[in-house]
């Protein structure tokens, strides 16, 4: 008999491989924030098992758990049975959307990207006082969060790129749209083509992304393969900056939050630390770091759809920063910065920056970058 849903065709064996040990509960950020086992990976796999067994059907009642996953992959990394929960969840969301069951925030994001070039439905793209679409060796690809919400961080990154004197250009970029694949829809082919065309027309050999998610999308999504086929190198800004010395240091106690998209998904753990330990000798890890890092709660569409729990997840992350007495929390993801900053309590005595923001601040204090 033909399986009713694509997730069954693709992932039946994986779902059944879940031995229900419940170990995912220890690392699931949604469970951590809610203490509700229906939300952890086991809860999700059990629902899917019952769908496969014909006991229940996919329907609106399941939105609350199936769409409430940041796809942080901490469960997958800790699953004794090796169940790739984020991939299964992405497929199930597509099946849910197919039958018309979807969280309105997720439908909204897809609708926005049909009409607009960015997830925030903003018309005017900021140019940060720089020329766009020039012939250059490098393209700097900002990403939606950096372009429309965390402009300070983007400004800092651009000033550091200027300082390195590399030949780079911005482009009239549009949303990489990779996120649509995570929230039940398909990547926006028109946006992909626009980005590919505009990158290629600069003649650049390397694209530097400000956003770990855009980086992941460019290197992993088959739709962006034309870039790789043309021999274009994709780097996240943290990989690019590690080779530079900006000549500044701080005595402050600094810690680093691994973004899920950069860490667990792309295994980029060392490069950000190489840069940070150069500028911050007083660097200290949080209790959960690298592959074990806690999720900031923003990913997988959860920030938009489940704002309260998303902030609760970020709070749990910041408790760790507080525990180790951090004065500065750095990360390499604008989305993480955005969510962590929103969750920070006034009494918490640390600042939250991207690494480039801190470097720029130190350089300005030293006078090596002008104000």
């Amino acid at each position: 008999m033909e399986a009713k849903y694509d997730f069954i065709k693709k992932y039946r064996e994986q779902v059944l491989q879940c031995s229900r040990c419940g170990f995912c509960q220890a690392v699931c950020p949604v469970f951590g924030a809610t203490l509700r086992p229906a939300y952890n990976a086991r809860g999700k796999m059990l629902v899917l098992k019952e769908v496969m067994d014909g006991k229940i059907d996919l329907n609106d009642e399941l939105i609350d758990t199936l769409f409430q996953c940041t796809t942080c992959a901490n469960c997958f990394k800790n699953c004794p049975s090796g169940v790739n929960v984020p991939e299964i969840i992405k497929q199930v969301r597509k099946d849910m959307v197919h039958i018309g069951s979807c969280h309105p925030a997720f439908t909204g994001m897809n609708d926005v990207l049909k009409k607009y070039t960015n997830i925030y439905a903003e018309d005017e793209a900021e140019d940060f006082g720089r020329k766009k679409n020039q012939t250059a060796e490098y393209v700097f690809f900002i990403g939606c969060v950096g372009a429309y919400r965390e402009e300070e961080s983007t400004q800092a990154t651009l000033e550091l790129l200027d300082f390195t004197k590399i030949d780079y250009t911005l482009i009239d970029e549009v949303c990489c749209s990779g996120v649509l694949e995570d929230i039940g829809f398909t990547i926006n082919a028109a946006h992909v083509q626009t980005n590919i065309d505009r990158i290629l027309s600069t003649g650049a050999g390397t694209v530097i992304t400000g956003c770990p998610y855009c980086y992941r999308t460019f290197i992993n999504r088959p739709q962006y393969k034309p870039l790789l086929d043309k021999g274009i190198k994709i780097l996240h800004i943290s990989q690019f900056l590690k080779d530079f010395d900006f000549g500044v240091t701080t005595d402050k106690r600094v810690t680093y939050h691994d973004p899920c998209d950069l860490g667990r998904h792309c295994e980029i753990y060392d490069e950000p630390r190489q840069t940070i330990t150069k500028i911050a000798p007083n660097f200290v890890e949080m209790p959960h770091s690298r592959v074990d890092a806690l999720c900031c709660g923003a990913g997988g569409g959860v920030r938009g759809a489940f704002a309260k729990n998303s902030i609760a997840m970020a709070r749990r992350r910041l408790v760790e920063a507080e525990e180790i007495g951090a004065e500065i929390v750095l990360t390499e993801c604008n989305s993480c910065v955005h969510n962590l900053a929103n969750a920070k309590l006034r009494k918490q005595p640390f600042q939250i920056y991207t690494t480039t923001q801190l470097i720029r601040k130190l350089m300005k204090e030293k006078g090596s970058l002008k104000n």
Partner: protein
Amino acid sequence: MDAKIKQALIDIVGEQNFTDNLIDLVSYSYDASEYKHRPICGVWPHTAEQISEILKLANREKTSVVPRGAGTGLTGMAVPTKGGIILDLNRMNKIQKISIEDRLVVVEPGVVYADLEKALAVYGFLFPPDPASGKVSTLGGNVATNAGGVKGAKYGTTRDYVLGLQVVLPDGRIMRTGSKTMKSVSGYDLTKLFVGSEGTLGVVSEITLKINPKTTASSTSLATFNHVEDAGHAVSQIMYSGILPSVLEILGREVIRAINQNTDLALPEVEVILLAETDGYTKTETDFQMQKVIDVFHKNNAIEVKQAQTAEEAADLWKARKSAYAVLARLKPTLVLEDVTVPMSKIADLLNGIKEISKKHNIMIATYGHAGDGNLHPQLMYDGYDPIQAKSQEAASADLFQLAIRLGGTLTGEHGIGLQKAAFMTLEHDPVAMDVMRSIKKLLDPHNILNPGKMALEE
């Protein structure tokens, strides 16, 4: 569900602590066993008083209540076979008191083992049982199941550390048992009656635990054997040596083969691997103990004995044991993890018997476990969707239980009876003992509302 009961529950715990949403009902239908049954609702109480009101209501309405921690049990003890209310205790998760001078902690039942471990590490102390599920399992669950772990032989199980409890009885009365002293012979030991009672007698709402100072040094070694009997003799003779290893683990051939086929650990393809750890406060002391263990290994025809010289080398030796569950969990769609336990001198007989059972029922059984306390984990692997294989598993498990009892052992060293072994209770316990257990259940829970259907308490 009954609208009146629903409203009464909401009145007790508040709307935000009640659920009859499908996703919760599905999630609460399962634990880590193969059993499943859907409850009618779930509640998240925050106080003993709320638990008391819930039980009073359930007792009045004759509705069953199943207390639940993290749901990591392997025998179906948290599965609501008769429907009813799931009492999810994981939001009662405060460590109320850490008293190093009194050598105890007071915790709520929903505190996760690992969170207590972290809180005690600051003082150089620990709560020793260390169950394999400790990252996620709750202390309430540990108490209800009398959880144990790899260091059971030297440090005992949860039971050995529970000094006192606050328990809500099925009729809603709240009772304190035990004391906050290191010893007490005052009255019946009600505390220990509730430890391992699998949520059938009362709901634990507060736990007073004895804690231990942490040892600071350890030595680790690994020995390989070509014959099960040699490894079995080695285990027995370690007991004669006067040394109590803090860990003495065993890996059988099927586990070794599975690890080699699925990882790059490249273990020697032998019949048995024994892994030992001795612990103490100085390296000299732990090495002295380990040398005696190693002498025993050599005397019993160990093919190869490796002693770790550094912490990294020790971690390498541990890799095989630590990867066992994960490797085996990926081999077949379904697994049942047994925990039959025999006197240590019977380990070789148990291993050989398991092999015969595996052949007889044509089912893969890979065995590892805690040789140091006679507690082995034969892991049965099959496809639960194939009715023939599922039958083989049941028959093989039944034979395993018979074997363990024949060897003077017990059905379960640490996972409990639950649903899975309920039918075998009479194999181990004589009619008088069964009658006493059932009488205790009837006395405390005359309407059989608390976790019904478990432990063969209903004949």
